């Protein structure tokens, strides 16, 4: 079986896995990082979004072996020493989630959006940035509000994630 070496949330990990193992499966089942969710398993819903070498990807549509040597950040990698990441805090403050299933993907996509487009995001930019993330509870309104607030709160706090 192929051996995969990754840096996940700053820690080096390695595993012998079948070539067909999806990145999300390795994260959830091998590394027990169950914060990354599988919603649709067809690259539509975005619940599985993680960052690979600094870019948001759908981890249900990437093989773990393709990520060999890469730096992966999951939702578990955002908070530091028990303090929520500003984007996580903004979702909490603005009621940006109801059932919470889509939230890890929403937050990873949001942080990627801020990294690409900066801290002042208008509603249009946020809604376009969320095209690949589905939420079946909130109607998106408070998610958009959360991301605008989280983006501003990230100012000066940009990190590897």
């Amino acid at each position, binding site marked *: 079986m*192929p051996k995969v070496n990754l840096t996940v949330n700053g820690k080096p990990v390695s595993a012998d896995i*079948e*070539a*067909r193992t*999806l990145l999300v499966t390795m994260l959830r089942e091998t590394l027990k990082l169950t914060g990354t969710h599988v919603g649709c*398993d*067809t*690259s*539509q819903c*975005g619940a599985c*979004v993680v960052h690979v070498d600094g*870019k*948001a*990807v*759908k981890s249900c*549509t*990437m*093989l773990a*072996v*393709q990520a*060999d040597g890469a730096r992966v950040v999951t939702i578990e990698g955002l908070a530091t020493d028990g303090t929520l990441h500003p984007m996580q805090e903004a979702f909490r403050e603005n009621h940006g989630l109801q059932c919470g299933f889509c939230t890890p993907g929403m937050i990873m*996509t949001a942080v*990627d*959006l801020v990294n690409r487009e900066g801290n002042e995001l208008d509603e249009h930019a946020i809604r376009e*940035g969320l*095209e*690949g*993330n589905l939420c079946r509870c909130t109607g998106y309104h408070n998610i958009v509000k959360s991301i605008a607030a989280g983006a501003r709160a990230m100012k000066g706090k940009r990190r590897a994630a």
Partner: protein
Amino acid sequence: MYNFEFHRPTTVDEALRHLKADEAKLLAGGQTLLPTMKQRLAAPKHVVDLGGVTGLSTIDHKGGSLVMGKAGGTVLRGGTLTIGALTTHAQVANSNEVKESLPALASLAGGIGDPAVRNRGTIGGSIANNDPAADYPAACLALGATVVTNKREIAADDFFTGLFETALEPDELILRVVFTAPGRAGYAKFRNPASRYAIVGVFVAERQGEVRVAVTGAGQSGVFRVPAMEAALAKKFDASAVDGIRVDASDLVSDIHAQADYRAHLIGVMAKRAVQMAA
């Protein structure tokens, strides 16, 4: 997904050697191949991942001249744009060289899928797959692009041969796509809101009085040109020139998203929008 033997070459030659294996498939960004394998519609015995091959994700612009940009200042227009096969949609969408020399192509790339898909999907993967609703085939055909492989150069007119079919031979690999910048070009897409694939997409390109119009999303054999619109737009490059020109619906796709006659109507509407957007 059925299991397979995985290969991660670092050079094109090494990739081609692995490709000779029985039932081998090339994997670029994987945004189509992996979902297809999950559904067991594809079950290759060997998967050759191109992710480790360097030098195939470059964007190179040569020639052209400085002209006044719409937003003031000068931009480099014209010339030749060479895009490596492994260049992602996000790279094309965000490249200043593409935005200046071929803005319609940058905007097309920025409208594929969603941000995460654009971070993985590649131009080479898209055209090699030749999905009848993909965006890039329309751009390649309308712009008269040249597909450069390890063996030869293939004109876009000869490259897209049918539904999910191309002129590529089993041991052939796309290295890059070469676009000669047009005078002006525009792409308008009526997209499926869930998949963001084109229900109808029309790419219009004008170069020294010659116009090419390519349609994706609608044809039963994939991307195709509309000679009647090309002739009318060559006489007068204005949206009104397309009035009254109707593509025969009997050659178009009908599915749960749109009937053939509706697609025929949309081709006219999207062609007009593409002309209006042309820059």
